[in-house]
């Protein structure tokens, strides 16, 4: 049996809400079948007040073994370094203090969501609450815990980044840990099983992308890279090959990928839904694409855009179907 404690620090709770969208099977059955016993979760467990306090104290004293500590939300360090922008109610102690105390006791520490991983939206716009991630401050290694920190099990903080996280990213990470499997991580400590993919993979707008047939306004079907701020060609995540909520994804929903699995996505230094341009040329290259080749291919493919794609790109539904060809 694998024991798990879940704490909600400075965030929106949306990664738990997303986790409850897990299907086939639903969350309670999935955890039970993986042999994971939830010691406490602030939204799901029965214990409140004194019961919850004594449960946390037993873990802190080492009387209850802790295999996995999940932290959802950034760590608020303000005001003035006290952590009092988020107190764990009833305990007189900040969440910053509780997480620092519990993390060394756990075999694995999982940062659930981009806030817990990097600071995320909680650290946006001047960072009013002086928030950081568990082991990163934005792109900089070292957050609440120092850069070289390792959990008892030998891994650094596992950053299941995303805003929110996909329920599959969280449940599969937990199942791998519970099964004692090796969990490869990328350069930002994100599980590679989803971070080795790009949001661009399987995007329904791929053909528009190929011919640079661009949408000009939200709700149009064309590629959103040139005008509408989409950075799915640079963002890690299997969002378009692993659907969200049945058959969704951001780009399927008609709005751009804002790279929510990455540190500092919350402050792109331009409007989220507008591509920054220099002299009319969009800034930003697809991952691993040499600039000169991209420019050459883009101008060539733009000149070759089929009429069908050019017209569909600026419509909100297909107005020109593909031409039928007789089989040879």
């Amino acid at each position, binding site marked *: 049996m694998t024991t798990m404690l879940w704490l*909600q620090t*400075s*965030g*929106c*709770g*949306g990664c738990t*809400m*997303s986790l*409850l*969208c897990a*299907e086939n099977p*639903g969350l*309670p*059955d999935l955890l039970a079948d993986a042999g994971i016993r939830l010691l406490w979760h*602030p*939204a799901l*467990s*029965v214990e*409140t*007040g004194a019961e*919850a306090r004594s449960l946390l104290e037993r873990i802190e004293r080492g009387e209850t073994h802790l295999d996995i500590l999940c932290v959802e939300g950034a760590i*608020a360090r*303000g*005001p*003035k370094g006290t952590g009092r*922008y*988020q*107190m*764990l*109610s*009833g*305990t007189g102690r900040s969440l910053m203090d509780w997480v620092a105390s519990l993390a060394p006791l756990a075999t694995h520490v999982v940062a659930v969501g981009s806030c817990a991983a990097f600071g995320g939206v*909680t650290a*946006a*716009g*001047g960072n*009013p*609450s002086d*928030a950081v991630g568990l082991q990163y401050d934005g792109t900089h290694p070292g957050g609440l815990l120092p850069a070289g920190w390792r959990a008892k099990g030998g891994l650094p903080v596992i950053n299941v980044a995303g805003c*929110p996280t996909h329920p599959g990213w969280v449940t599969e990470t937990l199942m791998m840990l519970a099964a004692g499997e090796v969990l490869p991580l990328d350069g930002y400590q994100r599980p590679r099983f989803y971070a080795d993919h790009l949001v661009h993979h399987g995007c329904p707008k791929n053909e528009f992308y190929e011919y640079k047939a661009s949408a000009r*306004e*939200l*709700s149009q079907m064309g590629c959103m890279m040139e005008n509408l701020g989409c950075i799915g060609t640079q963002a890690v995540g299997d969002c378009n090959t692993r659907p969200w*909520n*049945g*058959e*969704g994804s*951001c780009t399927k*929903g*008609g*709005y*751009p990928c*804002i790279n*929510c699995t990455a540190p500092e996505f919350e402050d792109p230094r331009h*409007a*989220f*839904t*507008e591509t920054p341009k220099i002299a009319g040329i969009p800034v930003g290259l697809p991952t691993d694409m040499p600039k000169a080749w991209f420019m050459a291919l883009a101008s060539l493919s733009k000149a070759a855009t089929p009429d069908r794609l050019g017209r569909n790109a600026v419509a*909100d*539904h297909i107005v020109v179907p593909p031409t039928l060809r007789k089989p040879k």
Partner: protein
Amino acid sequence: MSGARLVVGPFNRVEGDLEVTLDLADGHVAAARVNSTLYRGFERMLEGRDPRDALTITPRICGICSISQSAAAARALGSAMGLQPTPDGAAMAALIHAVENVADHLTHFHLFFMPDFARPDYAGRAWHTRAIARFTALEGSAMRGAITARAELLHVMGLLAGKWPHTLAIQPGGVTRAPGLREKLRLQATLRAFRRWLEDSLFGGSLEEFSAMPDSHALMRWGRGEVGLFLEIAADLGLASLGKGAGRYMSFGAYPIETGPIFARGLWDGSPGPLQTAAITEDLSHAWMLGPTTHPAQGRTEPDEDMRDTAYSWCKAPRLGGQPVEVGAIARQVVDGHPLARSLAQEGGVLARVAGRLLEIARTQEVMERLVAGITPGARFMAQGVMPRDGTGEGLVEAARGALGHWLRIESGKIAGYQIIAPTTWNFSPRDAAGVPGPLETALVGVPAEDGATLAVQHVVRSFDPCMVCTVH
């Protein structure tokens, strides 16, 4: 135990962070103070940004009311732009919003509220073994069924909003995804399956029959489904008169479509009255916030880093015409004039708040079905507009938990001011300068807490379905 003080926390099975301090006298709550223990500063994060960024940032205030925040931001921006959504776009935004509100009501009933009745404290009650089987946290059959039904209902989000939570699908001019015939039929299939689950499991009968009930006497005889179990418990434990509110209810009006809001806007104080939102103010006397009492259009968010002793919460105290108001599903249904809701409001306690939510689930299913039936493939689902360099906007919507307002000021093309009052800011407000407590603080006075037992207190607190991450934001 007379004259004792009890701190309840961590207060779980509410969304976010909550601490309740109770002064006890003769085994009852004599006074309550509600502390919202998390400050993040979203209003400050928005200052200096492109106004459109509010559509990305504000939904991330809250993972459970994310669409509500989207809808309020879209309305506030639209009002600054002088842009209305197209009628078909407004209908799809209403559908997306209704789905979130219903999913939230399900989450509250099955995951947050009912598990308390499976506690050993109630051993020996006639209904206790059924409550254990169905509502034990993370194990009960009804709870597990509800998690599955909710996840399947949220397929509507996958289809229309890309994902849930945190979508950019709702825009000032409408929605980014134009549904066609295939999507319409798929949505119908999802909603039919959801209705089947509601009628088989939660209600144990027809939704139309449930929402046709004229008063609380008829309601208490319902006797079917999980709703019947709740009503049996409510009758046994006297939940109708537990945690009574002041009976002053407000709704901004839910789901604005071409013909107006589907659930009406207004105020109820024993009789209907007009709602003057110009009379809204936020009082900071007992909040760790600095500044004068003002209308939110002039408001500021300046945290008191010294956390002065005379304050006890990060939550500001909103008032309407100087008085607290209660918001939420029961408020919405009372203001809309539903006879069962108005009957329940005569006591206005735990039963009224929970039954108000159940009534709203039944009524909203019909609303969602109507909105899907009205989808016209090929219609315009989004209008385009231009953001002014300078301007102001107001976005008023109904989240699952009640009235949500965004007030926005744009200067030189950037956000110069952004203020938000969330439903739980109203319900869990601290005292104001006159010492008047907020709605929860009032509802807790007189609640039994013999020997420090807090179960009745927990029923009252959870009956409001607080969202603490929205409260301070």
